[in-house]
């Protein structure tokens, strides 16, 4: 019995002591321990990390470190090979460390790094940039030089003028090759000035040569390459030379070199990449150009799968070289590059195929696609003129908006996109939404209207048009809708630009006439010009028949892609007497043929009142639009 009593006594003592300790601790009661403090909710994205340091610790590794940011939960580290721009390569994403290593570096190349912090509210601004250059291994030999190609000048009168200029081969792959074994000893890329630097630890006295390849990485990561149809890249080599300490080896590709054209194509497409880089959030994808193509015209093929007709090497730009040579036709190359950009950033519903500059009954989708293609060279040149005018190939007198396509010994085609009349276009040939020059001119004038501008064009092109569903093929109609949805206050300025090409997207003077009750009276024998604009727009008119006669009720002069649907009602405006979609059974060729898509009802009417309604055809072909204008006539 003693032992249990003893145990009980000890237990009491322990509990008593615990009670005393608890009270002495000041907690006051025996409640459960307090919950952990709530997580700190950030009030914004993290500040950019400070004290960023990049240190090359070997010829193959750079370490990047920074001070932690209080409200950042992780960090992203980006890299560029150009200072101040194009941080398209991600070294690490979402790391919680404050020091990381970049082991994908080449000695002798300078890399630029920025760091950002992230938290639950998103990613913060980029830090200040730091740069580092991994040192060359000891005992290496260095070859530096500049690589240029000879470009041909053109104008709007004679085509190629005979003048030439040397231009840098930019961002292109360069290799140092052992002239005996033909093995590549080192590879690098030229910079924006065509300058390269190659290092090698190969023995002094080895015979080598330098070659430049027709493949560049203007966007930092993705390449643009020019190949023949084999397909093989073009390469131009220097003369052989012996390795020694430091050597300068320049390379100039003259017009007498067959491969010169490939390097102009590469340069033009490189400028296209740099232009897009100023607007696009993502890096422009890989592109292959194939030259020379001796069958068919120059074209862009959007299909990844090769076919025997056009895409014989899959997706890419195929450049013609017959008597109509295009390798030095910068505008033609940018036109096709514009198609490539549309397929990657926007949405292009054009059926493709041959098209003519002053056809104003074109498929709306084709007009937009080719209009964008015609505008694109002018946009790139306009940008180059302010950033690097030395890269332009046209003589200084030729307007930036001039599109020139040369052929051997002259000009195949030239048109001033900014002012197409009267040199290329007459009357209304280059007007309306159904003409490609008209579409291009709208874009050119929008770009040059201060309150509008290229930023907004790109925004609608890149962010609005791709969201359109299958029922809304991309055309200038949807570009209009997208612009107004994005920038409603631009309505007036946009109207002015569109009306310059007789494209009027607005309610007509007879609105509102969407019901029989609000129908406008119509004088038989006269004509009324209406516009179909806005979702569900129906135009009603009311007319009176004095004596029993056969009447012809028709729509005509269909413009801007209109396709009408005509309905005849009795005096209540509710009971349908007859309806008609297309006046003839003629297939709609050209797509927006104003006769084929017009409507006509021939009907014997007794005296009394009648109603007619016109709306956009519910069975319109994809080539036609939802909007457009027409003339309504009712005659005995």
């Amino acid at each position, binding site marked *: 019995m003693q032992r249990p009593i003893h145990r009980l006594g000890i237990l009491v003592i322990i509990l008593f002591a615990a009670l005393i300790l608890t009270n002495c601790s000041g907690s006051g009661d025996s409640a459960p321990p307090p919950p952990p403090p709530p997580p700190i909710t950030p009030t914004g994205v993290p500040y950019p990390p400070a004290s960023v340091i990049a240190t090359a610790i070997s010829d193959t590794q750079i370490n990047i470190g920074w001070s932690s940011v209080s409200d950042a939960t992780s960090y992203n580290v980006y890299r560029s090979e150009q200072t101040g721009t194009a941080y398209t390569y991600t070294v690490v994403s979402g790391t919680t460390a404050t020091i990381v290593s970049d082991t994908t570096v080449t000695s002798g190349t300078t890399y630029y790094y920025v760091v950002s912090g992230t938290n639950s509210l998103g990613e913060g601004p980029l830090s200040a940039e730091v740069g580092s250059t991994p040192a060359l291994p000891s005992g290496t030999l260095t070859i530096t030089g500049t690589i240029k190609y000879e470009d041909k000048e053109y104008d709007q009168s004679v085509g190629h003028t005979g003048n030439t200029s040397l231009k840098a081969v930019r961002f292109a*792959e360069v*290799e140092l090759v052992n002239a005996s074994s*033909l093995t*590549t000893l080192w*590879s690098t890329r030229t910079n924006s000035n065509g300058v390269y630097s190659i290092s090698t630890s190969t023995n002094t006295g080895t015979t080598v040569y330098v070659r430049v*390849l027709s493949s560049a990485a203007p966007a930092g990561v993705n390449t643009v390459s020019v190949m023949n149809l*084999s*397909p*093989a*890249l*073009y*390469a*131009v*080599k220097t003369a052989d030379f012996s390795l020694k300490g430091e050597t300068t080896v320049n390379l100039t590709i003259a017009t007498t*070199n*067959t*491969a010169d054209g490939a390097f102009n194509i590469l340069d033009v497409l490189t400028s296209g990449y740099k232009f897009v880089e100023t607007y696009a959030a993502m890096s422009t994808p890989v592109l292959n150009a194939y030259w020379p193509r001796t069958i*068919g*015209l*120059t*074209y*862009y*093929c*959007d*299909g990844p*799968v090769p*076919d025997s*007709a*056009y*895409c014989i090497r899959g*997706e890419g730009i*195929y450049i013609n070289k017959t*008597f109509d040579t*295009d390798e030095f036709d910068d505008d*033609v190359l940018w*036109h*096709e590059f514009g*198609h490539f950009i549309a397929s990657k950033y926007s949405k292009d519903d*054009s*059926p*493709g*195929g*041959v098209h*003519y*500059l*002053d*056809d104003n009954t074109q498929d709306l989708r084709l007009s937009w*696609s*080719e209009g964008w*293609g015609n505008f694109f060279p002018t946009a790139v040149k306009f940008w180059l003129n302010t950033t690097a005018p030395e890269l332009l190939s046209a003589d200084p007198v030729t307007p930036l908006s001039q*599109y020139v396509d040369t052929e051997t010994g002259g000009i*195949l*085609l030239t*048109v001033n996109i900014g002012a197409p009349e*009267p*040199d*290329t276009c*007459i009357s209304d*040939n280059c007007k309306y939404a159904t003409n490609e020059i008209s579409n291009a001119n709208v874009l050119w004038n929008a770009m040059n209207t201060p309150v509008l501008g290229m930023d907004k064009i790109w925004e609608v092109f890149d962010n609005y048009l791709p969201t359109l569903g*299958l029922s809304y093929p991309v055309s200038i109609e949807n570009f209009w809708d997208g612009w107004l949805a994005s920038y409603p206050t631009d309505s007036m300025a946009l109207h002015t630009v569109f009306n310059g090409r007789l494209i009027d997207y607005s309610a007509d003077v007879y609105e509102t006439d969407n019901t029989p009750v609000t129908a406008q009276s119509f004088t038989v024998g006269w004509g009324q010009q209406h516009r179909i604009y806005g979702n569900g727009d129906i135009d009603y008119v009311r007319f009176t028949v004095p004596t029993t006669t056969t009447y012809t009720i028709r729509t005509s002069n269909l413009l801007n892609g209109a396709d009408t649907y005509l309905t005849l009602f009795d005096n209540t405006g509710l009971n349908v007497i007859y309806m008609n979609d297309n006046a003839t059974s003629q297939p709609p060729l050209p797509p927006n043929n104003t006769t084929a898509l017009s409507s006509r009802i021939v009907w014997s009417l007794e005296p009394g009142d009648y109603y007619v309604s016109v709306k956009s055809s519910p069975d319109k072909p994809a080539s036609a639009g939802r909007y457009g204008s027409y003339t309504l006539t009712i005659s005995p």
Partner: protein
Amino acid sequence: MNYRRISVLMLLAMLCLATIPYSAAAAKASKKPMLPVTVTIGPTMPGVGEDTLQPGEVVAFTVKATTLADASEMHLEAKLSGGVELVSGTLEWAGPAGKGEEKQISFTVRVPLKGQGSIKATATILREGKRTVKSTAQYVLGKGERVKKKPEYQQKKDSKGRDIVEY
């Protein structure tokens, strides 16, 4: 029963067609802009090609031109050069041409006995008395001098194993 099966199959086929993504359509080629007049030139007889023509041979050619728009006047012309001789026919035509209408001239020429010559065809249209638009096409015939030239380039591989033609 069979009708019902056929109907079900048709319905399934329609559904399949309807669900084919838009991007699954055949690849398209977006071509560069063209003028509203086209001209082509070639031997009149099918099967005759540049490779089959022999020096001194007499061959019939046809030049065809089409205008996309009404032209108050179209001028069609063929110019011979480099020893190509006209044997018969006319090398010029002029007159009005309607939209989509094809006009043509035919003639026979003798292929140069030595070297290469060419026929360059030009179609010019005048519209509303104001503007001229010109389109050209060329056909080369005859045997070029067979000089064995050293190839301009060498086919090699680059450091990534890609084919290159090195000049």
